């Protein structure tokens, strides 16, 4: 159990980082949609792609740290 502590702390750090990133993406997308509601579709697509790339990175880190 004690040997796992660094891994668990690392997992927590990854999740914090990914959370900040996703929050920024979501917040900016919201702002952009509020400014330009007619571009909602394009903004959402771009948002999902960036979120997916970020998620892939976070999962990759979790996966390697397991």
């Amino acid at each position, binding site marked *: 159990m004690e040997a796992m502590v660094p891994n668990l702390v690392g997992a927590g750090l990854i999740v914090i980082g990914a959370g900040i990133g996703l929050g920024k993406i979501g917040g900016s997308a919201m702002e952009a949609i509020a400014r330009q509601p007619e571009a909602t579709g394009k903004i959402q*697509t771009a948002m*999902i*792609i960036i979120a*997916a*790339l970020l*998620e*892939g*990175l976070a*999962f*990759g880190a*979790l*996966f390697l740290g397991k």
Partner: protein
Amino acid sequence: MERALYSIKFFGLLFSLLFTISSVANEVNGNEAQNDERINTEGEIRDYIQHHIKDAHDFHLVSYTNDAGERVHVGFPLPVILVGENGITTFMSSEFHHDTNGEVVVEKNGSRFVNFHGKIYELENGAASMIFDAEHHPTNASRPLDLSITKSVFGILVIGLLMLWWFSSLARQYKNRRIPKGFGRVLEPLVIYVRDEIAKPNIGEKKYRKFTGYLMTVFFFIWILNLLGLTPLGFNVTGQIAVTAALAIFTLIIYTASGNRDYWMHMLWMPGVPILIRPVLAVIELVGAFIIKPFSLLVRLFANISAGHIIVMSLVAIMITLKAEITPVGSTALSFVLALFISVIEILVAFLQAYIFTMLSALFIGMAVAEHDHEHDSDGTPEHTDAEDVRADFI
């Protein structure tokens, strides 16, 4: 309408078939009797989740301890196909009697097989049971080439045949009708969605047709298998790293094989940057194209689906683990509400992951086939130093 009825009938038939087999395949296993000792609930739940996440040689629906103290497993077996030292051997996985500890030995075709933690080992001559070294590696058994119809293979085969039937009948209908009938009306908007929202904008008007077939196959394959994973049958196909890796490798092969001159140029000898930086960029680009892109595709799908399954099963397990603290009724209600909530989210995730996999595949293919409307000089300085033009090069 007729087609939809056929589909419903087919599913009804499939499910009734499955449950008839499963009721026949009730298996009583006496040597795991646990009537005296208290069952380690937490450990059992953990084992159950681990067991579900992995692929298996049989469908395992329920297991319980009956009044006589015997362990009863409800499920149905699948065929095992092995290529070992004595050639091809086939038998049903029921011959292992649900044993995954390497205790039940099946003798077939002159070889002896045991099932250890879901993997089948072939015992060497004269060995009665498996012997392990200090690192828990078996010393007297080897793994034959396992071509069994496992749970995931079964799921892939069923979905593959269903998709072949659905889409070929949909395609046939367009020969003499303008709009499809029956179940095709459900599929048509999805097909058009994948074509118009995923393939066309990412690959480009000129070239999207060639790749739409692959994108559509991948999209429906992942989506339907994700949804199948949410049924209580115990499928976890898109949560198998081998399945997602195969899908990611298909995408890798397609975008590598269809890459044009500009793509390789930008990867190996990036125009418009100082000459000393170019080799560095080439290394980064190569690692990105051949390792990071497919790796992120496969890990994203695998991790999302596995995590979803673990969360749903953990929330269902609240029913048992919190029974003493908040009364059986309270724990059941809590676990029902939470599991229902997360299951609804999982339906969304099932679609979203299929969408993202297809979307990123289309994006990578689009990058590989994109045409640049201006030529680069051989020494790397663009002909027009227009800022817009240089920027367009990098986007």
